[in-house]
């Protein structure tokens, strides 16, 4: 418990939230980059299907996503059984790992879309030119496509992090409300309101509001600054 402005709040949900958001961002950058690159270079009509699938978490009620994940990741399900083959212990639901897995799905569009748009803006000609100078596909990606897409990476990372911090539905469905293990800030606020602890709810809400505003301002600043420089 920490006292801020004379109000006692538990810091655990805040640390947990930051940790989950950090991991989610890292994982999504690693997985989202190849996916976004592949999608950006795809010319067939299957791209439409993929784009729709990636965008799904934007329109789906988080509870729906959470519900399906709960079913898929349940302790007796195939996914967990499969992981046990590799020595995985514990479970994916109602645990921190599960929260991160859920967040990865929930925040997928926020990583993939900015990356994909950045990759699409890399002129094919530059990649061709690199190929004529003996750069192979990986080389071309790391030396041409990635540096020219740095704005996309910054936007993707910031949005993913911020969006994960604000998630509620998926967390509640998949993680429940285990103090210290799965109780994130958004749920903590919900709890406080339920218990009529408006002071704590006020404090956490205000922190979230200020944080979100700062993140958005950062994103727009990056957009402006790097929008001019690159391209």
């Amino acid at each position, binding site marked *: 418990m920490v006292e801020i402005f004379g109000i006692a709040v538990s810091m655990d949900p805040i640390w947990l939230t930051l940790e989950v958001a950090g991991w989610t961002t890292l994982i999504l950058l690693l997985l989202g980059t190849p996916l976004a690159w592949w999608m950006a270079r795809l010319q067939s009509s299957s791209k439409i299907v993929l784009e729709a699938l990636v965008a799904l978490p934007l329109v789906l009620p988080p509870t729906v996503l959470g519900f399906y994940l709960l079913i898929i990741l349940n302790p007796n399900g195939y996914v967990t059984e499969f992981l046990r083959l590799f020595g995985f212990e514990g479970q994916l639901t109602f645990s921190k790992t599960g929260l991160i897995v859920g967040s990865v799905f929930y925040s997928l569009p926020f990583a993939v879309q900015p990356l994909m748009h950045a990759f699409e803006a890399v*002129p094919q000609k530059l990649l061709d030119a690199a190929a004529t100078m*003996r750069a*192979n596909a990986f080389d071309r990606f790391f030396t041409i496509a990635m540096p020219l897409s740095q704005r996309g990476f910054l936007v993707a990372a910031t949005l993913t992090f911020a969006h994960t911090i604000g998630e509620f539905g998926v967390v509640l469905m998949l993680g429940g409300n285990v103090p210290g293990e799965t109780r994130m800030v958004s749920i903590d606020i919900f709890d406080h309101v339920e218990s009529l602890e408006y002071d704590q709810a006020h404090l956490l809400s205000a922190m979230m509001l200020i944080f979100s505003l700062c993140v958005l301002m950062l994103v727009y600043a990056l957009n402006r600054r790097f929008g001019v420089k690159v391209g």
Partner: protein
Amino acid sequence: MMTEQTTHYLRGRLQLELGNFKLESGEFNLPMQGVTVLFGRSGSGKSTLLRAISGLDKNTRGELSFGDELWQRGKKSLATQKRHIGFVFQDAALFPHMTVRQNLLYGVKRLPKGIEAADFDEIVGRVGIADKLDRGVNFLSGGEKQRVAIARALLLRPQILCMDEPLSALDWRSKAEMLTLIEELVAAYQIPVLYITHAPAEVERLAQNIVFMKAGRIERVESLQEALSRADSPLFDDEGAVSVLQGRIESEERGLHPVVFGENRLWLSEASTADKKTVRVRVLAKDVSLSLSDPEHLSIINHLSAKILELIPEKKHRMLVRLQLNDGQKLFAEITQFSAERLGLEVGQELFALIKSVALTE
């Protein structure tokens, strides 16, 4: 510079479909020597063929080999980065996040052992970008960008240098400078060039061989001389038939520059390229008149003795006369059919060609 002077052939047949456009090249066997121009209207498939040859498009099918290297067979193709070619794109395609120097060294760093890059300082100096090495490429003019692109390709000492309309994005002054530069580089480094253009003037200036393309097919492959000796040559635009004569330039006399071919000589009033020995001179057929005797009392000073090879009637009562000069080069004259009858011209007849104006090709 010492290079083996054996000519390698680029041979095969290539197919590539892009949306509605279909490239179906037909068999070709091109000697990679000097500048080979891919010529045709826009949409004729020049760029597509060059991309297919470079291996830049995965959907390319067919056969392609260069010398004894196999570059394409069916769906299998050797990756572009292993073909050891250089490519200069229409708008340079410099990497915007790098300086000029970084652009130039991008390929050099990736050369495998055993292949040595060309001398950096020499190329940079010759291409004229030595003072711009540490600039960002976005601060270069169009002409400067294209120079960097050419240097970047030349540094790798490619087996073939591909150039896709390298001048089309430039203003006329840069165009003229770049043409001169390309001409010098080709002569100096002896790298075979595949050059795309739809400008006859560039063809006349640079080409050794011409690949004529139409509707995704290679129509014919000819030497420049062959292409220019046809009355219906696609190289002739609204100025009518053109001849290109190759000669040796000699030192200035009475403010004029003599160009010598065989026993003939032409007098040029301007010759900008003083350091060159061989020059190409462009003569419009309509600037050539014919005379049965060598006229002395005439302001026109360029008189060449010639023999009639062919009389080709044209539209609007014009007559195209194909002549052979005494060193074997061909020259077109365009006169009226009335004049031809009055002079009683016939094939085999010897006469004099009077040239009103000549220009060095540029």
